[in-house]
């Protein structure tokens, strides 16, 4: 039974149609990939589902646990268990990473004591000791931002995690760390969607489904072998 279902989703940005009828379902405990060339609408899909400003849904539906999602403000979608790891997380000065996460975890129903156990655990598991005490994303390198997103994902324990290019700009060690966290997340029962251009990260995770987005539509849906084919031959393989 899928946890997130997207049906015939049309989204415009500044009156320009970007998504033209996306259909997609994500299953709990599974890792899915969304691939596609530049400008195909991958980030738009993720941001629309999370409720980003400026993304206008003109048609279609999306539901989380059979509850309608698209009419809710972003924070209610998050509270229902949706998480988007941003491709470009903004810097927020003067806000400590820890304080921010404490607030966010409280909204997900985690008490003060629970947080004070889980936070140091997550920090050490993701080898992020150097991040503790820093301001949220301020002065983080590209790779550090990805790990900060991962830390948030880890602590907030979402039902559905949309990861927008978690692999861009990270070194091979960080890539393994990220892949490990994605595996653990899926094992805990979450549905994961990895948005990427490259099949590299997909070799490190137990992949079940691959969706290919092109021109605002899902043009192909297959198993892990689809990612391999794209890796070898490029997106031409899915174009008619």
């Amino acid at each position, binding site marked *: 039974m899928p946890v997130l279902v997207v049906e015939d989703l049309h989204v415009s940005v500044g009156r320009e149609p970007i998504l033209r009828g996306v259909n997609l379902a994500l299953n709990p405990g599974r890792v899915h990939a969304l691939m596609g060339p530049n400008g195909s609408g991958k980030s738009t899909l993720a941001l629309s589902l*999370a*409720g*980003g*400003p*400026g993304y206008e849904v003109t048609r279609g539906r999306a539901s989380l646990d059979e509850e309608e999602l698209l009419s809710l*403000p*972003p*924070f209610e*979608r*998050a*509270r229902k268990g949706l*998480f*988007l790891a*941003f491709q470009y*997380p*903004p810097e*927020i*000065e*003067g*806000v400590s990473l820890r304080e*921010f996460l404490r*607030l*966010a975890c409280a*909204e*997900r129903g985690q008490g003060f004591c629970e947080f004070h156990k889980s936070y140091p655990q997550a920090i050490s598991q993701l080898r992020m000791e150097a991040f503790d005490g820093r*301001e*949220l994303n301020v002065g983080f390198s590209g790779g550090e931002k990805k790990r900060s997103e991962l830390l*948030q994902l880890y602590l*907030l324990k979402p039902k559905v995690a949309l990861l927008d290019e978690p692999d861009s700009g990270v070194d091979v060690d960080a890539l393994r760390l990220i892949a490990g966290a994605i595996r653990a997340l899926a094992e805990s029962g979450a549905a994961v969607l990895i948005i990427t251009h490259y099949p590299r990260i997909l070799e490190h995770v137990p992949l079940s489904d691959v969706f290919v987005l092109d021109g605002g539509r899902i043009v192909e849906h297959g198993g892990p072998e689809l990612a391999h084919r794209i890796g070898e031959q490029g997106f031409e393989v899915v174009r008619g």
Partner: protein
Amino acid sequence: MTTQRTPRTLTREFVEALSVEKGEPAWMRAHRERCFAMFEKAPLPRFGPNLSELDFSDLSYYARPVDPVKRWEDLPDELRRTFNALRLPEAEQKALAGLGAQVDSEVVYRSLLDEVRAQGVIFASMDTAVREHPWIRDYFMKAIPAEDNKFAALHGAVWSGGTFIWVPPGVEVSVPLQAYYRMQTEAVGQFEHTLIVAEPGSSVHYIEGCSAPRFARSALHSGMVEIFAKDGAKVRFTTVQNWSKNVYNLNNKRALAHAGATVDWVSGSLGSKVTMLYPTTVLLGPGARTENLSFTFSQDGMWLDSGARALHRAPDTTSRLVSRSVVQGSGRSVFRGTVHVFPHAKGSKAHVECSTLLLTPDAKTETIPILNAETDDVELGHEATVGRVSQDQLFYLMSRGLSQAQAMSLIVNGFVSPILKEIPLEYSIELKGLLEMSFEKAIG
């Protein structure tokens, strides 16, 4: 003044009667009368907010709604509940060397730790101090003369209550002293006088907090703070102001810093209808330093006109003026940062930094830096920024489950954190709470 309230228009007779009632020495009575004459002649300030709605003929210039007590329990119920809600008794137990509380014109409660008293520190109500220590005459309104402006003159004529602190040479008061000012009567004027004399090599941190319930008619708060930091002394003065939106908050604050002395002003302003406040440090001796850290939050209908001044009158003196202003709704914030380096103040350094965060399209802000140096041998720095809360930041925080109000208050808290972290914890927690509440209200 056996009556609890006074006639609503200020007269010379009232000023005399006030002095007689307080049992003051002749010099103070003469001082009040001189100030009253100046007040009558002086014009309103020629800059800043519109004060034409401030009605000098509709104010209680003296009010004593409650009698002083020795124990918190003896205060009237309503006031006790207010002070409990402000957690004053708790702070007194946990974090303070001494505490005073003033309601309208008179101090109603005061305490000082025995060990601090044993160090020779004086922490008294200003009224008592004027009667008991004749030498105060050499300091009282010597940093800010009545000629300075209309409100200095008014203050000199009708001042009542406030705090006197004397720290003996070399004595370091390790825990802060605090006073809390409450305006409890409608259309009252509160004119407390705070005088701090820190003898050579001493140090002290003083905190004042202010609040009032909201009334329909305007109230006036016009306090005065004078600080004398002698050679090598360190004085830190923290103010957290949350006056209600019917209060005109027009204050004078000035410090004289002698050789090697340090004076730091830290302030958080969240309330009032109109504020005019420009704490000034005169760097009188070589090597004197001052910092002025201020944060203001102007909401709908408020005009917070604040600033900081550093006058470098000696060589090798240092000043750093930093402000963070947040403006919401039809609020307005003005920051006037003034640095003046006199010709002989060679080797001095001054830095002015003002940043503003606008939360709404109609919010208004202005920063007016004035940096004058009469010598070339000086380092002057100035930065000013104005920004808006970005939609990307808001969305990011909301995508983690924070409501819009929570996200907004987190961003604002982050913006003011360079100042907030300088404010003692119990106040900074209260300030964060107040910020969040105001966003919940604004966003709904």
